[in-house]
């Protein structure tokens, strides 16, 4: 039975002086949960025998199976020392790197921490991490050196060896702390020097720092009483203090002196009965060995090694212990040992007494911590309004009186099954309940009787049953529909068996049921909120998270259920005063992952949790059965809320991607999704990685770095060989193509864009979007009211144009001045590819028209314009290599001609409005084009007239107003005459053909672009991650091997100041990143973990279609060279994924003859 009742605990909760909020931190498998078990056993919640085996706080099934803790869980313990009662709110935390976010949530709620270190393994990576975390959150740690039994039984150390080993371990731990300290000091100095740069050169007084050092007692030292030696598994633990008291009398030394000298280089001079220094130099046994370790060793020796019955009894007698006969007769000597030693030196009291003595109560919260909690580094505390600054005092006092404002911090939301809630649990029936039931039964019986007797009493029966229902409602089962569930419209009824409970701590005031509190969002600014209230603004605060507007950060919330954490169970409470950890129900609609709840708006939102491990492992998930998509989405939402360190996103491709901190974390998340949140089967796959396609100028070197001698010949022939028979291809990159009905001819040239231009284009996507939207409005035939761009955007556009112009000019002669000829961007009208109008005489309205005033001319080619641009958009969206978007490609429309098919004229080609670009034209064309322009303008005028007649005619008359090509210049005048006669619009006939023509033109332009692209040197571009890795010196080599294997490039490595860590920066292709984190961790035994951020697109300088041609290449790569070509490998895998044709043999070698058996 439980040693403490809820009443007792809630009584204690009111005395902040007697509360300790602590968490247990350590590396994985150093014994946190075992220690927690021992502490829990001391409260009688679990049996002493089961302590260490049960792992009470590991309530999840997979935690038990895997044997690691995966979540932080809390329990309230009662401890009595020197007739003082204490309440210890203990939070157990996971040790695995993947779950370090859980550690963050635990640390935030505590004032002190118990850091456990396995003496055999010493300081491990996570020990570093947790110490840093404790340091950053300003919580005070005590140290438990655990698993000392392993020194005795496994390593078979002598007491003296063990002492030295312990000393070394302690030093290691202290080294970490001092590293943290120096780093912080150095950072502060940096900030200071940054602050007063002009100030005189400062000399740092290191001695002063050291003083400060001492003062803050950051070191662990047994004599300080903040170190416990323990073996949680065997259930024993002690502090120096404990032994000092035990042996003071025996040795005849003052216990205070003994306490000071028990640890360290002291020995007992038995002759002089004095304690002297310098045990090591005099080869004497240090006091610690003599007094402490040897005794423990003796017990182990007797029980475990020698199994000496008499000796055991002697020990039991001398220690004055009572061992039950069952234990002493037990066959397993370990059980005997545990029984003896855990009675002699119970670990729970050792740890708890240290906790109670050395760790601060909520009352002693340091000023520093309060400020750190309340404001982030970017903001000074003084900048908050006075009301907020006043709150600091409240914090420090931990005032739980009624007047004090309520402030709570929710560090995580965690799911609880509805049936596990105390309201829904079955309870033993009380006397009252019984009598109630009896009454009900009686009524029922009476009703039945009455019904039998006469039908008139039916009314009464109804009343009665109504009553019955009421009674039932009151008697316990009703809580199911308590307000916790209300306002939850997203979830369906059957999915509501999960309830989120906020894991929170009260920092000030008292929380009661039914209290109205504000939930403060992370960006809440007390200053603004106060101003708003002062201004008398009525703010609607009744929303939930879902319907919260953008700049509203405050919501109101009525507290409903308060719980006390008892490990796996929850106990209901009515009110919780300051300084306690509690569970708060009904917040799931208000708080996503963590948040601040307060009764005053003046309170700031607490700083975000510091999370050590950022999520990096990405996978795409989808339901196994396609119809269960919405359940998956809902499950993902719940998962996102429940886990502080998971990111869920929907990608543009429609994939649902979850990003977790590591592989184990991922597995847990998936398990949760399958079992708890979505309850469906799911499939996990590598996320789809995007690629880009581009073209490059002719390479000058071949694959074995030999210069290609004849610049044009071999390469060109190679590339163009495939297109030899294709008469549409004119030159490298230049394609001439007709629509299927042979009405329109276009000539398109593909050129790689200079990289600078692409870079500029990359950065201005949104700007181009605005420009496009603007032009859309404007484009539409004049009647739409013109929307003026605001000044800012106009300037930005201007700047964009100038930059582009400059980049173009820098790129070479042929690019000069092309800025004004830009027709469109693509794909999606904003992408990094350009369509350029290369027809000299076609005055397409510039894309810059939004900043150029008065340029309001009608577009003479409007109808075709749409089609050409659409064709271009489609082509750039799906490139020919593997249907991925293009990047950095420029298409120049050289010609766009209308071919008059059946006109019977000698020359069938009729230029629409355009001409060959200069290269093909002779000198004579100068004046020709001149005349043509004039003709053009005429056409424009005339078409203008027509437009005046019917502005929106489907087909405008340009087709009729054709002008001859340059070759036919002599006849142009005649043509002009002709044109006059042909001015009679043939609209009706053409109308039918137009829409078809538009469609044909689109596909024609698209094919043209693709073909032009194909005739150039095609390349794939891969997305690159920028990869930041922190690692220690020992693992650098292995780390480089991993990165090298995945085709990464190391950029730099720097030693971080004041520590042994290297910062390594590298680029890594996104395709190769799957599983990277896991491999790196495995190879470096967890000492390095990467962080990945998308950085840029990188050209893969390898032709996916490349085959060795020169002798050297064949020698180097063999005839097929398919193993080397990564570009081809990527391309083929994408094509396979998309179901496109892949140039791969179905079988590599034909199956040759086989000898048949007789019967076949």
């Amino acid at each position, binding site marked *: 039975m439980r040693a403490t009742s809820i009443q007792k605990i809630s009584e204690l909760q009111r005395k902040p002086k007697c509360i300790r909020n602590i968490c247990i931190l350590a590396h994985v498998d150093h014994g946190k949960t075992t220690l927690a078990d021992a502490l829990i056993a001391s409260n009688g919640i679990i049996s002493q025998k089961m302590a260490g085996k049960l792992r009470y706080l590991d309530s999840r099934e997979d935690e038990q199976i895997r044997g690691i803790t995966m979540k932080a869980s809390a329990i309230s313990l009662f401890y009595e020392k020197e007739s003082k009662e204490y309440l210890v709110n203990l939070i157990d935390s996971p040790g695995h790197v993947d779950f370090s976010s859980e550690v963050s949530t635990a640390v935030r709620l505590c004032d002190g921490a118990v850091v456990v270190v396995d003496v055999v393994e010493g300081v491990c990576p996570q020990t570093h991490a947790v110490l840093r975390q404790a340091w950053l959150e300003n919580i005070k740690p005590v140290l438990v050196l655990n698993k000392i039994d392993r020194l005795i039984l496994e390593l078979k150390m002598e007491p003296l060896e063990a002492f030295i080993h312990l000393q070394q371990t302690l030093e290691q731990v202290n080294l970490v702390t001092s590293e943290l300290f120096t780093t912080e000091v150095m950072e502060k100095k940096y900030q200071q020097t940054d602050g007063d740069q002009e100030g005189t050169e400062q000399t740092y007084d290191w001695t002063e720092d050291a003083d400060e050092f001492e003062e803050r007692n950051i070191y662990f030292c047994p004599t300080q009483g903040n170190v416990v030696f323990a073996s949680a598994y065997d259930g024993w633990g002690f502090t120096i203090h404990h032994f000092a008291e035990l042996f003071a009398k025996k040795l005849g030394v003052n216990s205070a002196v003994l306490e000071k000298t028990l640890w360290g280089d002291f020995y007992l001079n038995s002759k002089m009965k004095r304690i002297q220094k310098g045990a090591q130099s005099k080869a004497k046994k240090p006091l610690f060995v003599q007094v402490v370790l040897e005794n423990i060793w003796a017990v182990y020796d007797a029980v475990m090694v020698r199994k000496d019955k008499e000796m055991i009894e002697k020990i039991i007698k001398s220690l004055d212990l009572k061992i039950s006969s069952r234990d002493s007769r037990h066959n397993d000597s370990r059980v005997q040992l545990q029984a003896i030693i855990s009675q002699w030196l119970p670990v729970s009291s050792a740890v708890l007494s240290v906790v109670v003595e050395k760790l601060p109560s909520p009352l002693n919260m340091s000023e520093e911590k309060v400020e750190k909690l309340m404001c982030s580094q970017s903001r000074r505390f003084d900048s908050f309004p006075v009301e907020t600054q006043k709150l600091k005092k409240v914090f420090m006092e931990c005032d739980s009186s009624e007047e004090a404002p309520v402030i709570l911090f929710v560090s995580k939301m965690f799911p609880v099954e509805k049936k596990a809630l105390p309201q829904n649990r079955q309870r033993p029936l009380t006397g009252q309940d019984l009598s109630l039931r009896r009454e009900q039964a009686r009524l029922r019986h009476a009703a039945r009787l009455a019904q039998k007797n006469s039908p008139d009493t039916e009314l009464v029966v109804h009343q009665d049953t109504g009553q019955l229902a009421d009674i039932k409602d009151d008697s316990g089962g009703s809580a199911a529909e308590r307000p916790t569930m209300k306002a939850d419209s997203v979830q369906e009824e059957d999915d509501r068996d999960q309830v989120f409970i906020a894991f929170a701590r009260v920092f000030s005031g008292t929380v009661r049921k039914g209290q109205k509190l504000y939930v403060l969002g992370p960006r809440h600014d007390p200053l603004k909120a106060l101003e708003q209230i002062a201004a008398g603004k009525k703010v609607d605060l009744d929303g939930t998270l879902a319907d919260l507007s953008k700049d509203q950060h405050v919501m109101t919330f009525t507290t409903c259920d308060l719980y006390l954490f008892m490990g796996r169970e929850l106990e209901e409470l009515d009110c919780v005063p300051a300084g306690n950890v509690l569970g708060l129900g009904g917040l799931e609609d208000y708080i*996503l992952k963590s948040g601040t709840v307060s009764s005053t708006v003046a309170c700031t939102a607490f700083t975000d949790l510091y999370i050590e491990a950022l999520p990096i492992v990405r996978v*795409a998930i*989808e*339901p*196994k*059965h*396609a*119809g269960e*998509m919405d359940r998956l*989405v809902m499950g*993902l*939402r719940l998962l*996102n809320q429940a886990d502080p360190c998971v*990111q*869920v*996103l*929907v990608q*543009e*491709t*429609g*994939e*649902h991607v979850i990003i977790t901190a590591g592989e184990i974390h991922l597995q847990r998340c998936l398990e949760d999704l399958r079992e708890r949140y979505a309850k469906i089967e799911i*499939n996990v*796959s590598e996320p*789809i990685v995007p690629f880009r396609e581009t073209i490059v100028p002719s390479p000058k070197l071949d694959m074995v770095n030999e210069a290609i001698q004849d610049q044009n010949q071999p390469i060109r022939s190679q590339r163009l060989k495939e297109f030899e028979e294709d008469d549409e291809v004119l030159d490298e990159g230049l394609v001439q193509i007709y629509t299927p009905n042979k009405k329109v001819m276009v000539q398109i040239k593909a050129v790689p864009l200079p990289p600078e231009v692409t870079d500029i284009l990359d950065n201005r996507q949104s700007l181009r979007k605005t420009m496009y939207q603007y032009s*859309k409005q404007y484009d*539409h*035939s004049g*009647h*739409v009211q013109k929307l003026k761009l605001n000044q800012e955007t106009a300037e930005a556009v201007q700047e964009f144009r100038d930059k582009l112009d400059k980049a173009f000019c820098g790129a070479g002669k042929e690019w000069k001045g092309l800025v004004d000829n830009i027709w469109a961007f693509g794909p*999606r009208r904003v992408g990094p590819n350009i369509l350029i109008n290369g027809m000299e005489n076609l005055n397409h309205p510039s894309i810059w028209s939004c900043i150029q005033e008065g340029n309001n001319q009608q577009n003479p080619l409007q109808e075709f314009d*749409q089609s050409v641009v*659409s064709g271009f958009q489609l082509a750039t969206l799906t490139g020919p290599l593997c249907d991925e978007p293009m990047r950095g490609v420029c298409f120049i429309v050289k010609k766009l001609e209308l071919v008059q098919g059946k006109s019977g004229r000698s020359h069938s080609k009729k230029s629409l409005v355009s001409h060959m670009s200069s290269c093909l034209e002779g000198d004579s064309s100068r004046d020709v084009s001149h005349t043509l322009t004039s003709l053009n303008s005429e056409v424009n005028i005339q078409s203008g007239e027509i437009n005046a007649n*019917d502005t*929106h*005619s*489907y087909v405008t008359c340009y087709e009729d107003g054709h002008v001859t090509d340059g070759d036919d210049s002599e006849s142009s005048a005649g043509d002009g005459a002709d044109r006059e006669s042909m001015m009679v619009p043939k*609209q*009706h006939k053409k*109308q039918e053909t137009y*829409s078809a023509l538009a469609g044909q033109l689109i596909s024609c332009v698209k094919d043209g672009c693709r073909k032009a692209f194909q005739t150039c040197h095609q390349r794939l571009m891969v997305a690159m991650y920028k990869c930041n890795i922190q690692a220690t010196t020992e693992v650098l080599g292995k780390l480089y091997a991993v990165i090298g294997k995945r085709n990464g490039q190391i950029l730099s490595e720097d030693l971080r100041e004041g520590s042994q860590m290297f910062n390594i920066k590298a680029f890594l292709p996104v395709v190769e990143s799957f599983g990277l984190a896991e491999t790196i961790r495995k190879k470096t035994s967890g000492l390095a973990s990467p962080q990945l951020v998308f950085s840029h697109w990188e050209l893969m300088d390898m032709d996916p279609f490349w085959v060795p041609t020169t002798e050297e290449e064949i020698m180097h790569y063999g005839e097929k060279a398919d193993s080397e070509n990564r570009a081809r490998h990527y391309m083929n895998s994408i094509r*396979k*994924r*998309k*179901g*496109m*044709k*892949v*140039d*791969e*043999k*179905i*079988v590599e*070698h*034909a*199956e*040759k*003859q*086989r000898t*048949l058996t007789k019967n076949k």
Partner: protein
Amino acid sequence: MALKQPTGQKRLTNVAVVRLKKGGKRFEIACYPNKVVSWRNKVETDLDEVLQSYSVFNNVSKGEAAKADDLKRIFGTDNQKEICLQILAKGELQVSEKERHTQLESMFRDIATIVTDKCVNPETNRPYTVTLIERAMKDLHFSVKPNRNAKQQALEVIKQLTEKEIIKIQRAQMRLKLTIPAKEDKKLRAKIRKIATKVELDNFEEELVMVVLIDPGCFAEIEELVRSETKGKGHIEVLSLKDVEEGDELLE
């Protein structure tokens, strides 16, 4: 039937036969299975990997070689290799198991990719992934017909998916901007509203300007409507072919 001695026979097993009927005669060549398609796709370039022997048969399984004068008469040459090449290029072939399998598989993928491309999840307005569509197609027991083109079959899949409600799916909507002269606005407006799934903008000043979302299948219908009703004076502009959510979204 002539008695055949086992000796002196070269028995061809594991054969894929390519046939060509020309000049009233049937010619066959013996190839290795799974190789002919690769040859036709110009992936396989080594003829020895394709042909079992360079001789032309009348019947491969019976081992009847073609007569030389027949070849000469019909093909105009007696070079067996050249004739083999001709038959390889033009003859009808027996598609081998692996070839059929890859063909069907890639077609299946292709169909799924087209469906993915054309459709969205109506709730989120985001596309489904190819794998999900593939799975839905499997649930649908959709069988690929190798002789119909992928796009037709994709449309069929979409129809069946929406009918049987295996997943919530919808064609990605097309966004159109219609400009209709003032005269016809009344009668057209109602009709357009009937066709369109959503009317985003309905502005009447001098002329009617509407921005609507329609099912891409209705485009021809709406185009016809606008053209006939306005006698060619109405104007349709395609604002976007596919109205889908862009960019990544954090799920919260």
